[in-house]
Protein backbone atom coordinates (compact mmCIF):
# COMPACT_ATOMS: atom_id res chain seq x y z
CA UNK A 1 0.00 0.00 0.00
CA UNK A 2 1.41 3.39 -0.94
CA UNK A 3 2.06 6.08 1.67
CA UNK A 4 -0.60 8.22 0.05
CA UNK A 5 -3.33 5.60 0.41
CA UNK A 6 -2.14 4.86 3.96
CA UNK A 7 -2.65 8.51 4.87
CA UNK A 8 -6.00 8.66 3.07
CA UNK A 9 -7.41 5.56 4.77
CA UNK A 10 -6.03 6.55 8.16
CA UNK A 11 -7.67 9.98 8.05
CA UNK A 12 -10.96 8.55 6.78
CA UNK A 13 -10.81 6.34 9.86
CA UNK A 14 -9.95 9.34 12.03
CA UNK A 15 -12.88 11.34 10.66
CA UNK A 16 -15.21 8.39 10.91
CA UNK A 17 -14.33 8.01 14.60
CA UNK A 18 -14.61 11.71 15.36
CA UNK A 19 -17.58 13.37 17.07
CA UNK A 20 -17.94 15.72 14.10
CA UNK A 21 -18.93 12.80 11.86
CA UNK A 22 -21.70 11.67 14.19
CA UNK A 23 -22.85 15.25 14.69
CA UNK A 24 -23.13 15.70 10.92
CA UNK A 25 -24.86 12.32 10.65
CA UNK A 26 -27.39 13.43 13.26
CA UNK A 27 -27.87 16.77 11.50
CA UNK A 28 -28.45 15.18 8.10
CA UNK A 29 -30.82 12.60 9.61
CA UNK A 30 -32.93 15.34 11.26
CA UNK A 31 -33.00 17.38 8.03
CA UNK A 32 -33.91 14.28 6.00
CA UNK A 33 -36.76 13.37 8.33
CA UNK A 34 -38.08 16.94 8.25
CA UNK A 35 -37.92 17.00 4.45
CA UNK A 36 -39.73 13.64 4.21
CA UNK A 37 -42.45 15.03 6.49
CA UNK A 38 -42.64 18.23 4.45
CA UNK A 39 -42.83 16.33 1.15
CA UNK A 40 -45.59 13.96 2.26
CA UNK A 41 -47.55 16.76 3.91
CA UNK A 42 -47.49 19.15 0.97
CA UNK A 43 -47.40 16.83 -2.05
CA UNK A 44 -51.14 17.25 -2.55
CA UNK A 45 -51.70 20.25 -0.37
CA UNK A 46 -49.33 23.03 -1.30
CA UNK A 47 -49.25 26.20 0.73
CA UNK A 48 -51.33 28.83 -1.00
CA UNK A 49 -48.39 31.12 -1.72
CA UNK A 50 -46.89 28.37 -3.91
CA UNK A 51 -50.13 28.14 -5.91
CA UNK A 52 -50.50 24.36 -5.92
CA UNK A 53 -53.58 23.97 -8.08
CA UNK A 54 -52.07 25.54 -11.17
CA UNK A 55 -48.67 23.74 -11.07
CA UNK A 56 -48.18 20.91 -13.62
CA UNK A 57 -46.74 17.69 -12.24
CA UNK A 58 -43.29 18.11 -13.90
CA UNK A 59 -42.93 21.61 -12.46
CA UNK A 60 -44.14 20.36 -9.12
CA UNK A 61 -41.49 17.61 -9.17
CA UNK A 62 -38.79 20.15 -10.13
CA UNK A 63 -40.00 22.41 -7.32
CA UNK A 64 -39.69 19.60 -4.77
CA UNK A 65 -36.17 18.75 -6.00
CA UNK A 66 -35.37 22.47 -5.85
CA UNK A 67 -36.56 22.73 -2.24
CA UNK A 68 -34.67 19.59 -1.15
CA UNK A 69 -31.53 20.97 -2.79
CA UNK A 70 -32.02 24.42 -1.26
CA UNK A 71 -31.74 22.84 2.19
CA UNK A 72 -28.88 20.59 1.08
CA UNK A 73 -26.78 23.60 0.06
CA UNK A 74 -26.14 24.53 3.69
CA UNK A 75 -24.81 21.08 4.55
CA UNK A 76 -21.50 21.21 2.59
CA UNK A 77 -20.70 24.47 4.38
CA UNK A 78 -21.22 22.94 7.81
CA UNK A 79 -19.54 19.74 6.73
CA UNK A 80 -16.51 21.68 5.49
CA UNK A 81 -16.45 23.65 8.74
CA UNK A 82 -16.55 20.48 10.85
CA UNK A 83 -14.10 18.39 8.81
CA UNK A 84 -11.98 20.99 7.03
CA UNK A 85 -11.53 23.86 9.48
CA UNK A 86 -9.53 21.93 12.09
CA UNK A 87 -7.77 19.73 9.50
CA UNK A 88 -4.41 21.48 9.63
CA UNK A 89 -4.69 23.77 12.64
CA UNK A 90 -5.55 20.84 14.92
CA UNK A 91 -2.24 19.16 14.06
CA UNK A 92 -0.50 22.20 15.52
CA UNK A 93 -2.89 22.91 18.39
CA UNK A 94 -3.03 19.27 19.52
CA UNK A 95 0.71 18.78 18.97
CA UNK A 96 0.13 15.74 16.72
CA UNK A 97 2.38 17.54 14.20
CA UNK A 98 5.33 16.44 16.35
CA UNK A 99 4.33 12.87 15.54
CA UNK A 100 3.33 13.26 11.90
CA UNK A 101 5.79 15.85 10.47
CA UNK A 102 9.03 13.95 11.22
CA UNK A 103 7.70 10.80 9.52
CA UNK A 104 9.27 10.03 6.14
CA UNK A 105 6.45 11.30 3.96
CA UNK A 106 6.23 14.39 1.80
CA UNK A 107 3.92 17.06 3.14
CA UNK A 108 1.89 17.27 -0.07
CA UNK A 109 0.95 13.60 0.31
CA UNK A 110 -0.27 14.31 3.83
CA UNK A 111 -2.25 17.31 2.63
CA UNK A 112 -3.87 15.60 -0.35
CA UNK A 113 -4.56 12.41 1.62
CA UNK A 114 -6.20 14.38 4.38
CA UNK A 115 -8.12 16.55 1.92
CA UNK A 116 -9.55 13.54 0.08
CA UNK A 117 -10.48 11.93 3.40
CA UNK A 118 -12.41 15.07 4.44
CA UNK A 119 -14.07 15.18 1.03
CA UNK A 120 -15.02 11.50 1.29
CA UNK A 121 -16.74 11.83 4.67
CA UNK A 122 -18.54 15.02 3.54
CA UNK A 123 -19.69 13.20 0.42
CA UNK A 124 -20.91 10.22 2.47
CA UNK A 125 -23.07 12.62 4.51
CA UNK A 126 -24.47 14.17 1.32
CA UNK A 127 -25.09 10.79 -0.28
CA UNK A 128 -27.26 9.75 2.66
CA UNK A 129 -29.43 12.84 2.12
CA UNK A 130 -29.51 12.36 -1.66
CA UNK A 131 -30.57 8.73 -1.34
CA UNK A 132 -33.42 9.77 0.96
CA UNK A 133 -34.30 12.60 -1.44
CA UNK A 134 -34.41 10.39 -4.53
CA UNK A 135 -36.23 7.63 -2.65
CA UNK A 136 -38.90 9.99 -1.30
CA UNK A 137 -39.47 11.97 -4.48
CA UNK A 138 -39.39 8.90 -6.75
CA UNK A 139 -42.04 7.33 -4.52
CA UNK A 140 -44.19 10.46 -4.50
CA UNK A 141 -43.92 11.26 -8.22
CA UNK A 142 -43.58 7.66 -9.48
CA UNK A 143 -40.61 8.64 -11.60
CA UNK A 144 -36.83 8.52 -11.53
CA UNK A 145 -34.80 11.73 -11.31
CA UNK A 146 -34.39 13.74 -14.49
CA UNK A 147 -31.10 14.85 -16.08
CA UNK A 148 -31.19 18.00 -13.90
CA UNK A 149 -30.66 15.86 -10.85
CA UNK A 150 -27.37 14.62 -12.31
CA UNK A 151 -26.32 18.16 -13.23
CA UNK A 152 -27.10 19.22 -9.69
CA UNK A 153 -25.22 16.22 -8.26
CA UNK A 154 -22.13 17.00 -10.33
CA UNK A 155 -22.25 20.65 -9.27
CA UNK A 156 -22.70 19.57 -5.66
CA UNK A 157 -19.54 17.43 -5.88
CA UNK A 158 -17.62 20.43 -7.24
CA UNK A 159 -19.04 22.60 -4.45
CA UNK A 160 -18.02 20.10 -1.73
CA UNK A 161 -14.52 19.92 -3.23
CA UNK A 162 -14.35 23.73 -3.31
CA UNK A 163 -15.67 24.29 0.22
CA UNK A 164 -13.33 21.62 1.61
CA UNK A 165 -10.43 23.20 -0.23
CA UNK A 166 -11.26 26.72 1.01
CA UNK A 167 -11.54 25.50 4.61
CA UNK A 168 -8.25 23.56 4.32
CA UNK A 169 -6.56 26.71 3.07
CA UNK A 170 -7.92 28.74 6.01
CA UNK A 171 -6.97 25.95 8.41
CA UNK A 172 -3.41 26.04 7.05
CA UNK A 173 -3.18 29.73 7.98
CA UNK A 174 -4.03 29.29 11.65
CA UNK A 175 -2.56 27.33 14.55
CA UNK A 176 -5.80 27.32 16.52
CA UNK A 177 -8.99 25.51 15.56
CA UNK A 178 -11.30 28.20 16.90
CA UNK A 179 -9.81 30.84 14.61
CA UNK A 180 -10.21 28.53 11.63
CA UNK A 181 -13.85 27.71 12.50
CA UNK A 182 -14.81 31.35 12.98
CA UNK A 183 -12.97 32.55 9.88
CA UNK A 184 -14.63 30.00 7.59
CA UNK A 185 -18.10 30.88 8.86
CA UNK A 186 -17.38 34.61 8.69
CA UNK A 187 -16.04 34.39 5.16
CA UNK A 188 -18.90 32.31 3.85
CA UNK A 189 -21.87 33.85 5.61
CA UNK A 190 -20.70 37.41 6.15
CA UNK A 191 -18.22 38.19 3.40
CA UNK A 192 -19.88 36.18 0.62
CA UNK A 193 -23.56 36.60 1.50
CA UNK A 194 -23.42 40.12 2.89
CA UNK A 195 -20.85 41.08 0.24
CA UNK A 196 -23.17 39.82 -2.47
CA UNK A 197 -26.08 41.86 -1.07
CA UNK A 198 -24.02 45.05 -0.68
CA UNK A 199 -22.50 44.79 -4.16
CA UNK A 200 -25.93 44.29 -5.71
CA UNK A 201 -27.40 47.13 -3.71
CA UNK A 202 -24.65 49.62 -4.48
CA UNK A 203 -23.64 48.70 -8.00
CA UNK A 204 -26.75 46.90 -9.32
CA UNK A 205 -24.62 44.02 -10.60
CA UNK A 206 -24.90 40.34 -9.79
CA UNK A 207 -21.60 39.24 -8.17
CA UNK A 208 -21.54 35.88 -9.92
CA UNK A 209 -17.85 35.52 -9.08
CA UNK A 210 -18.65 35.03 -5.36
CA UNK A 211 -18.63 31.39 -4.28
CA UNK A 212 -22.02 31.58 -2.54
CA UNK A 213 -23.58 33.01 -5.67
CA UNK A 214 -21.93 30.44 -7.94
CA UNK A 215 -23.03 27.62 -5.63
CA UNK A 216 -26.67 28.61 -6.04
CA UNK A 217 -26.47 26.90 -9.45
CA UNK A 218 -26.88 23.57 -7.61
CA UNK A 219 -30.51 24.47 -6.85
CA UNK A 220 -30.95 26.57 -9.99
CA UNK A 221 -30.25 23.46 -12.07
CA UNK A 222 -33.92 22.63 -11.31
CA UNK A 223 -35.44 26.11 -11.24
CA UNK A 224 -33.69 29.36 -11.94
CA UNK A 225 -34.52 31.00 -8.63
CA UNK A 226 -31.43 32.43 -6.98
CA UNK A 227 -32.12 32.66 -3.25
CA UNK A 228 -28.74 34.35 -2.75
CA UNK A 229 -29.59 37.08 -5.23
CA UNK A 230 -32.29 39.51 -4.05
CA UNK A 231 -32.58 41.40 -7.31
CA UNK A 232 -32.67 38.59 -9.86
CA UNK A 233 -35.82 37.67 -11.73
CA UNK A 234 -36.91 34.17 -10.75
CA UNK A 235 -37.92 31.64 -13.34
CA UNK A 236 -39.45 28.19 -12.95
CA UNK A 237 -37.34 26.92 -15.86
CA UNK A 238 -33.97 25.33 -15.16
CA UNK A 239 -30.95 27.63 -15.38
CA UNK A 240 -29.50 27.85 -18.91
CA UNK A 241 -26.70 25.37 -19.65
CA UNK A 242 -24.27 28.24 -20.16
CA UNK A 243 -24.99 29.42 -16.59
CA UNK A 244 -24.34 25.92 -15.30
CA UNK A 245 -20.97 25.76 -17.05
CA UNK A 246 -20.04 29.29 -15.98
CA UNK A 247 -20.91 28.73 -12.31
CA UNK A 248 -19.10 25.40 -12.33
CA UNK A 249 -16.06 27.18 -13.75
CA UNK A 250 -16.18 29.81 -10.99
CA UNK A 251 -16.26 27.04 -8.35
CA UNK A 252 -13.41 25.18 -10.06
CA UNK A 253 -11.30 28.37 -10.06
CA UNK A 254 -11.96 28.78 -6.30
CA UNK A 255 -11.04 25.14 -5.83
CA UNK A 256 -7.75 25.30 -7.75
CA UNK A 257 -6.68 28.62 -6.21
CA UNK A 258 -7.49 27.66 -2.61
CA UNK A 259 -5.98 24.19 -3.03
CA UNK A 260 -2.72 25.59 -4.40
CA UNK A 261 -2.48 28.27 -1.68
CA UNK A 262 -3.34 25.73 1.05
CA UNK A 263 -0.72 23.31 -0.23
CA UNK A 264 1.98 26.00 -0.28
CA UNK A 265 1.04 27.12 3.24
CA UNK A 266 1.13 23.53 4.50
CA UNK A 267 4.52 22.88 2.88
CA UNK A 268 5.86 25.90 4.79
CA UNK A 269 3.97 25.21 8.00
CA UNK A 270 6.14 25.20 11.09
CA UNK A 271 5.52 24.04 14.62
CA UNK A 272 7.28 26.57 16.76
Amino acid at each position, binding site marked *: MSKFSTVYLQYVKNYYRSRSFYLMLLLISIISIMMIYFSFKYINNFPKFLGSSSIPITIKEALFYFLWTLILLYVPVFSAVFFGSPAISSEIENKT*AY*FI*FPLPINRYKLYIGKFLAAFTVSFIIMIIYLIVEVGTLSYLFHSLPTIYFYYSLLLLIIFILTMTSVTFMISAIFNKNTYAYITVLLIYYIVFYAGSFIIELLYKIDPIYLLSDAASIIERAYMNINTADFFSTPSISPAPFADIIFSALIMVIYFIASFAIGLILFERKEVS
Partner: protein
Amino acid sequence: MEIFMNSLTKKYGKITALNNINLNVKNHGCVGILGPNGAGKTTMLKLITNIIKPTHGEVQINGINVSEKPEKALGFVGSLIEQPEFYSYLTGKEILDFTRKIKGMNKETFNNIIDSIINTTQISSFIERKTGNYSRGMKQRLALAVAMIGDPEIIILDEPTFGLDPKGMKEIRTLIRNLARTKLILLSTHLIYEAREICDRTIIINNGIIEHDSTMADNKFLLKITLDSPGHSIVSNKIKNYTVNGNEIIVEKSNDYENFEVIEDLIGQGIKVKYVEQFDNLEDVYISITNKNKVNI
Protein backbone atom coordinates in the same frame (compact mmCIF):
# COMPACT_ATOMS: atom_id res chain seq x y z
CA MET B 1 25.11 7.30 9.37
CA GLU B 2 25.74 11.02 9.37
CA ILE B 3 24.05 14.32 10.20
CA PHE B 4 25.66 17.35 8.65
CA MET B 5 24.64 20.92 9.44
CA ASN B 6 25.98 23.63 7.20
CA SER B 7 25.64 27.32 8.23
CA LEU B 8 22.35 26.39 9.86
CA THR B 9 20.45 29.45 10.99
CA LYS B 10 16.91 29.83 12.24
CA LYS B 11 15.31 33.17 13.00
CA TYR B 12 11.87 33.89 14.45
CA GLY B 13 11.31 37.50 13.49
CA LYS B 14 14.13 39.43 15.11
CA ILE B 15 15.09 36.58 17.41
CA THR B 16 17.88 34.29 16.23
CA ALA B 17 17.19 30.88 17.72
CA LEU B 18 20.11 29.17 15.98
CA ASN B 19 23.02 31.06 14.50
CA ASN B 20 25.29 29.70 11.77
CA ILE B 21 25.70 26.18 13.14
CA ASN B 22 28.28 23.98 11.44
CA LEU B 23 28.25 20.51 12.87
CA ASN B 24 28.97 17.02 11.71
CA VAL B 25 27.97 13.95 13.71
CA LYS B 26 28.55 10.50 12.34
CA ASN B 27 28.96 6.83 13.22
CA HIS B 28 27.21 5.06 16.04
CA GLY B 29 27.21 6.48 19.53
CA CYS B 30 25.29 9.02 21.51
CA VAL B 31 25.80 12.74 21.00
CA GLY B 32 24.27 14.94 23.67
CA ILE B 33 23.08 18.49 22.99
CA LEU B 34 23.23 20.37 26.26
CA GLY B 35 22.05 23.84 27.02
CA PRO B 36 19.74 25.90 29.18
CA ASN B 37 16.09 26.46 28.27
CA GLY B 38 15.81 28.53 25.10
CA ALA B 39 19.40 27.82 24.05
CA GLY B 40 18.34 26.39 20.67
CA LYS B 41 18.50 22.64 21.36
CA THR B 42 14.95 21.84 20.31
CA THR B 43 15.16 24.25 17.37
CA MET B 44 18.15 22.28 16.10
CA LEU B 45 16.28 18.96 16.40
CA LYS B 46 13.16 20.41 14.77
CA LEU B 47 15.28 21.55 11.83
CA ILE B 48 16.81 18.11 11.47
CA THR B 49 13.36 16.48 11.45
CA ASN B 50 11.77 19.02 9.07
CA ILE B 51 9.27 20.29 11.65
CA ILE B 52 10.59 23.77 10.92
CA LYS B 53 12.55 25.14 7.95
CA PRO B 54 15.93 26.84 8.16
CA THR B 55 16.18 30.58 7.52
CA HIS B 56 19.61 29.94 6.10
CA GLY B 57 21.85 26.90 5.60
CA GLU B 58 20.94 23.26 5.38
CA VAL B 59 20.74 19.93 7.18
CA GLN B 60 21.85 16.80 5.42
CA ILE B 61 21.12 13.29 6.60
CA ASN B 62 23.39 10.75 4.97
CA GLY B 63 24.12 13.36 2.30
CA ILE B 64 20.45 14.14 1.57
CA ASN B 65 19.08 17.63 2.15
CA VAL B 66 16.16 17.37 4.60
CA SER B 67 14.26 20.41 3.31
CA GLU B 68 14.54 19.34 -0.33
CA LYS B 69 13.94 15.59 0.01
CA PRO B 70 12.30 15.04 3.40
CA GLU B 71 10.74 11.70 2.53
CA LYS B 72 14.09 10.20 1.57
CA ALA B 73 16.20 11.89 4.27
CA LEU B 74 13.80 11.16 7.14
CA GLY B 75 13.64 7.52 6.07
CA PHE B 76 16.89 7.07 8.00
CA VAL B 77 15.52 8.75 11.11
CA GLY B 78 13.34 7.91 14.07
CA SER B 79 12.50 10.80 16.35
CA LEU B 80 10.88 12.00 19.51
CA ILE B 81 10.51 15.78 19.48
CA GLU B 82 9.07 17.84 22.35
CA GLN B 83 6.17 15.98 24.01
CA PRO B 84 4.27 14.60 21.04
CA GLU B 85 0.58 13.89 21.13
CA PHE B 86 -1.16 11.17 19.14
CA TYR B 87 -4.59 10.94 17.56
CA SER B 88 -6.66 10.39 20.68
CA TYR B 89 -9.12 7.93 19.15
CA LEU B 90 -6.39 5.55 17.97
CA THR B 91 -4.83 2.89 20.18
CA GLY B 92 -1.09 2.67 20.71
CA LYS B 93 -1.05 -0.37 18.45
CA GLU B 94 -2.81 1.51 15.65
CA ILE B 95 -0.30 4.35 15.98
CA LEU B 96 2.58 1.90 15.62
CA ASP B 97 0.92 0.21 12.65
CA PHE B 98 0.33 3.58 10.94
CA THR B 99 4.00 4.46 11.52
CA ARG B 100 5.03 1.10 10.05
CA LYS B 101 3.06 1.77 6.87
CA ILE B 102 4.47 5.29 6.49
CA LYS B 103 7.99 3.95 7.02
CA GLY B 104 7.35 1.35 4.34
CA MET B 105 7.95 -1.65 6.58
CA ASN B 106 6.19 -4.85 5.60
CA LYS B 107 3.87 -6.53 8.09
CA GLU B 108 5.98 -9.68 8.42
CA THR B 109 9.13 -7.78 9.43
CA PHE B 110 7.05 -5.59 11.72
CA ASN B 111 5.56 -8.62 13.46
CA ASN B 112 9.05 -10.00 14.01
CA ILE B 113 10.32 -6.88 15.76
CA ILE B 114 7.28 -5.35 17.39
CA ASP B 115 7.33 -7.56 20.50
CA SER B 116 10.91 -6.56 21.15
CA ILE B 117 10.05 -2.84 20.78
CA ILE B 118 6.99 -3.21 23.01
CA ASN B 119 9.02 -5.00 25.68
CA THR B 120 11.94 -2.60 25.47
CA THR B 121 9.76 0.49 25.83
CA GLN B 122 7.42 -1.30 28.25
CA ILE B 123 4.18 -0.29 26.60
CA SER B 124 2.53 -3.73 26.55
CA SER B 125 0.12 -2.97 29.41
CA PHE B 126 -1.54 -0.02 27.62
CA ILE B 127 -0.89 -0.58 23.91
CA GLU B 128 -4.49 -1.67 23.25
CA ARG B 129 -5.88 1.47 24.91
CA LYS B 130 -6.74 4.66 23.06
CA THR B 131 -3.94 7.20 23.36
CA GLY B 132 -6.36 9.88 24.54
CA ASN B 133 -6.28 8.15 27.94
CA TYR B 134 -2.50 7.95 28.19
CA SER B 135 -0.49 9.73 30.88
CA ARG B 136 2.51 11.91 29.97
CA GLY B 137 4.91 9.03 30.69
CA MET B 138 2.89 6.56 28.59
CA LYS B 139 2.91 8.95 25.63
CA GLN B 140 6.65 9.41 26.04
CA ARG B 141 7.19 5.64 25.94
CA LEU B 142 4.91 5.25 22.92
CA ALA B 143 6.82 8.06 21.17
CA LEU B 144 10.04 6.16 21.81
CA ALA B 145 8.47 3.02 20.33
CA VAL B 146 7.38 5.05 17.28
CA ALA B 147 10.95 6.32 16.90
CA MET B 148 12.25 2.75 16.88
CA ILE B 149 9.83 1.46 14.22
CA GLY B 150 11.59 0.71 10.95
CA ASP B 151 14.95 0.14 12.66
CA PRO B 152 16.27 3.62 11.75
CA GLU B 153 20.04 4.11 11.84
CA ILE B 154 19.67 7.61 13.33
CA ILE B 155 17.48 8.41 16.33
CA ILE B 156 16.75 11.99 17.41
CA LEU B 157 15.53 12.36 20.97
CA ASP B 158 14.43 15.60 22.57
CA GLU B 159 14.50 15.23 26.35
CA PRO B 160 13.42 11.60 26.17
CA THR B 161 13.16 11.11 29.93
CA PHE B 162 10.81 14.06 30.41
CA GLY B 163 7.70 13.06 32.33
CA LEU B 164 9.06 9.70 33.44
CA ASP B 165 9.47 8.53 37.02
CA PRO B 166 13.04 7.85 38.28
CA LYS B 167 12.77 4.13 37.49
CA GLY B 168 11.45 4.88 34.02
CA MET B 169 14.23 7.43 33.45
CA LYS B 170 16.87 4.86 34.31
CA GLU B 171 15.29 2.27 32.01
CA ILE B 172 15.15 4.71 29.11
CA ARG B 173 18.77 5.73 29.66
CA THR B 174 19.83 2.08 29.60
CA LEU B 175 17.81 1.61 26.42
CA ILE B 176 19.48 4.62 24.77
CA ARG B 177 22.90 3.36 25.82
CA ASN B 178 22.15 0.01 24.20
CA LEU B 179 20.79 1.61 21.03
CA ALA B 180 23.92 3.77 20.76
CA ARG B 181 26.02 0.63 20.23
CA THR B 182 24.70 0.32 16.69
CA LYS B 183 22.94 3.61 15.95
CA LEU B 184 23.66 7.31 15.93
CA ILE B 185 21.66 8.92 18.72
CA LEU B 186 21.33 12.68 18.90
CA LEU B 187 19.85 13.61 22.23
CA SER B 188 18.97 16.94 23.78
CA THR B 189 18.85 17.41 27.49
CA HIS B 190 19.46 20.08 30.08
CA LEU B 191 20.53 17.46 32.65
CA ILE B 192 24.33 17.24 32.83
CA TYR B 193 24.32 13.95 34.70
CA GLU B 194 22.08 12.44 32.02
CA ALA B 195 24.45 13.53 29.26
CA ARG B 196 27.42 12.22 31.22
CA GLU B 197 25.71 8.91 31.81
CA ILE B 198 24.67 8.11 28.26
CA CYS B 199 26.59 10.28 25.80
CA ASP B 200 29.93 9.72 24.10
CA ARG B 201 30.15 13.30 22.94
CA THR B 202 28.58 16.46 24.30
CA ILE B 203 27.83 19.73 22.58
CA ILE B 204 26.82 22.74 24.64
CA ILE B 205 24.61 25.28 22.91
CA ASN B 206 23.95 28.70 24.32
CA ASN B 207 22.09 31.60 22.69
CA GLY B 208 21.89 29.67 19.43
CA ILE B 209 25.60 28.98 18.98
CA ILE B 210 27.81 26.00 19.79
CA GLU B 211 29.99 27.00 22.75
CA HIS B 212 31.60 23.67 23.56
CA ASP B 213 32.15 20.36 21.81
CA SER B 214 33.95 17.55 23.58
CA THR B 215 34.11 13.81 23.93
CA MET B 216 33.45 12.20 27.27
CA ALA B 217 37.14 11.33 27.51
CA ASP B 218 37.83 15.07 27.58
CA ASN B 219 35.40 15.65 30.40
CA LYS B 220 37.05 14.83 33.70
CA PHE B 221 34.73 13.77 36.44
CA LEU B 222 36.77 13.46 39.60
CA LEU B 223 36.18 12.73 43.23
CA LYS B 224 38.70 14.14 45.70
CA ILE B 225 38.54 12.22 48.96
CA THR B 226 40.48 13.61 51.90
CA LEU B 227 41.34 11.06 54.58
CA ASP B 228 42.15 11.81 58.19
CA SER B 229 45.65 10.31 57.80
CA PRO B 230 47.96 9.49 54.86
CA GLY B 231 49.40 6.16 53.79
CA HIS B 232 46.31 4.13 53.04
CA SER B 233 46.12 1.65 50.20
CA ILE B 234 42.73 0.89 48.64
CA VAL B 235 41.40 -2.47 47.64
CA SER B 236 38.15 -1.97 45.81
CA ASN B 237 36.16 -3.60 43.06
CA LYS B 238 34.49 -0.31 42.20
CA ILE B 239 37.35 2.18 42.12
CA LYS B 240 39.58 1.42 39.17
CA ASN B 241 41.42 4.62 38.27
CA TYR B 242 42.75 6.63 41.17
CA THR B 243 45.89 8.31 42.46
CA VAL B 244 46.97 8.73 46.09
CA ASN B 245 48.69 11.92 47.13
CA GLY B 246 49.39 12.08 50.88
CA ASN B 247 46.03 11.89 52.56
CA GLU B 248 44.16 12.73 49.34
CA ILE B 249 42.73 10.20 46.91
CA ILE B 250 41.74 11.44 43.46
CA VAL B 251 39.25 9.06 41.87
CA GLU B 252 38.32 9.21 38.19
CA LYS B 253 34.65 8.55 38.48
CA SER B 254 32.67 6.49 36.07
CA ASN B 255 28.92 6.11 35.70
CA ASP B 256 29.07 2.56 37.04
CA TYR B 257 28.64 3.62 40.64
CA GLU B 258 27.37 6.44 42.82
CA ASN B 259 29.53 8.62 45.11
CA PHE B 260 28.11 7.13 48.26
CA GLU B 261 29.12 3.66 47.09
CA VAL B 262 32.80 4.75 46.92
CA ILE B 263 32.64 6.19 50.43
CA GLU B 264 30.90 3.08 51.72
CA ASP B 265 33.62 0.97 50.16
CA LEU B 266 36.38 2.97 51.87
CA ILE B 267 34.63 2.98 55.23
CA GLY B 268 34.13 -0.75 54.88
CA GLN B 269 37.89 -1.11 54.70
CA GLY B 270 38.33 0.82 57.94
CA ILE B 271 39.51 4.00 56.24
CA LYS B 272 38.32 7.20 57.89
CA VAL B 273 37.07 9.75 55.37
CA LYS B 274 37.38 13.39 56.39
CA TYR B 275 35.55 15.01 53.51
CA VAL B 276 34.71 14.52 49.82
CA GLU B 277 34.74 17.00 46.94
CA GLN B 278 33.44 16.43 43.42
CA PHE B 279 35.04 18.03 40.35
CA ASP B 280 33.00 17.91 37.19
CA ASN B 281 34.72 19.40 34.17
CA LEU B 282 31.56 19.30 32.06
CA GLU B 283 29.50 20.92 34.77
CA ASP B 284 32.12 23.64 35.24
CA VAL B 285 32.16 24.38 31.52
CA TYR B 286 28.37 24.36 31.38
CA ILE B 287 28.06 26.74 34.32
CA SER B 288 30.72 29.10 33.01
CA ILE B 289 28.97 29.22 29.62
CA THR B 290 25.49 29.74 31.01
CA ASN B 291 26.76 32.28 33.54
CA LYS B 292 27.75 34.48 30.62
CA ASN B 293 24.02 34.99 30.05
CA LYS B 294 23.69 36.50 33.52
CA VAL B 295 26.65 38.79 32.91
CA ASN B 296 25.13 39.91 29.63
CA ILE B 297 21.83 40.65 31.33
